[in-house]
C-alpha cells in the first residue's frame, strides 16, 4: 500500500487530495493542516461546506473524502509541518505533495523530502499565477536549486493580499495529483527538473528548465531516490 502525504488542505490540497483519491483509491492519504475552515475558504477549498466553518480542515477533508470516494483511505493530522515533525509525518511516505501557504514550510518540506529521499510535488498559486515542480532526489533539481531560500516576511504578497483565483487552484491541484500518481506508478513525472507555470488570466502556460545546482544544500548531497518500479 502506498502513502501520499499532503501538506496544506487549502486551495491546492483539497483538489489534489480528491483527484488522487479518485485516481488511486487504494492509496493511503495523510492530510496535514493545523488550520480551521473559514467562510472565506469555501470558494476554492472544495472539500468544505458552510457547515464545516470552524472545524479542523484536515479532519473535515478526511471525512469528506471517505464519503465521496468509495475505498478512499484518508487520515487527518491536525498539525503544522516543521523540521521537528518531519520524520514523524514522513514515516512510510512514498510521495509528498506540498500545497501550503508558507514559504518557510515549503523550503522545510523540500529539504526534508530531499534528505529522506522522498519524491516531492511542489505546487503553488498566487493571484492568477501557478507553479508546479516535481522533485525526485538524485534525479534532477529541487526547489532550492531554483530559489536559494524563502523571502523575508512581507517581501512577497501573501494569498490574503494578492488573492488566489479559485479555478486556478483546481487546475494546479489536479496537476499535482497527476504528478503524484505518476511517481507512485514509477513513471517519470512531467515536471521533473522543469518548472511549469500557468497564467490563468491570459490562459497561457510555459516551462523553464531547472537544472540541478551542484552546490545545492538540499539535494546535491542527497542520496538517490529510486522510482518505485524503474
Amino acid at each position, binding site marked *: 500500500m502506498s502513502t501520499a502525504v499532503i501538506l496544506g488542505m487549502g486551495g491546492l490540497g483539497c483538489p489534489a487530495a480528491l483527484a488522487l483519491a479518485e485516481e488511486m483509491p487504494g492509496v493511503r492519504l495523510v492530510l496535514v493542516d493545523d488550520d480551521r475552515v473559514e467562510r472565506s475558504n469555501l470558494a476554492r477549498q472544495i472539500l468544505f461546506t458552510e457547515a464545516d466553518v470552524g472545524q479542523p480542515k484536515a479532519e473535515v477533508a478526511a471525512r469528506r473524502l471517505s464519503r465521496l470516494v468509495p475505498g478512499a483511505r484518508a487520515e487527518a493530522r491536525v498539525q503544522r509541518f516543521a523540521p521537528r515533525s518531519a520524520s514523524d509525518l514522513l514515516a512510510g511516505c512514498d510521495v509528498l505533495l506540498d500545497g501550503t501557504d508558507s514559504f518557510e514550510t515549503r523550503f522545510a518540506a523540500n529539504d526534508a523530502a530531499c534528505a529522506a529521499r522522498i519524491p516531492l510535488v511542489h505546487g503553488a*498559486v498566487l493571484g492568477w499565477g501557478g507553479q508546479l515542480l516535481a522533485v525526485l532526489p538524485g534525479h534532477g533539481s529541487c526547489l532550492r536549486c531554483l530559489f536559494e531560500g524563502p*523571502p523575508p516576511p512581507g517581501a*512577497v504578497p*501573501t494569498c490574503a493580499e494578492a488573492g488566489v483565483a479559485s479555478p486556478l487552484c483546481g487546475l494546479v491541484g489536479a496537476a499535482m495529483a497527476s504528478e503524484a500518481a505518476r511517481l507512485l506508478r514509477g513513471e517519470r513525472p512531467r515536471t521533473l527538473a522543469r518548472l511549469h507555470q500557468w497564467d490563468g488570466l491570459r490562459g497561457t502556460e510555459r516551462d523553464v528548465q531547472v537544472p540541478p545546482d551542484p552546490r545545492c544544500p538540499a539535494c546535491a548531497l542527497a542520496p538517490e531516490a529510486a522510482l518505485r518500479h524503474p
Partner: protein
Amino acid sequence: MPVIVKIPAPLRPLTQGQSEVSVENAATVQAAVEDLSRRYPGLRERLLDDKGALRRYVNIFRNDEDIRHGKSLQTALAEGDKLTIVPAIAGG
C-alpha cells in the same frame, strides 16, 4: 531585434499589466534590469537586494539558462534573447 523580458503575474502591477516588455541595447542581464528599473519604478527592489545581487527568492532565465548557474547578472545578452523572471510564490 530587442531582448524580450517575460514578466510574471505578481510583478505585472509594476509594468502596467504587461506580460512582456522589450529592452534595447542591453549587453548583460544587469543592464536589462537597470533599464527596466528606470522605466518601471519598484521593479528593481523586487528583483535585487540592497547590494545589487539577485534576490534569493527570485530567478531569471536567459532563454533556457538559469543565470544563477553561470555569470548571474553579468550573463551576456544577444539580440533576440528572451529573459524570463520567475519569482517564488507560496499560495495554496
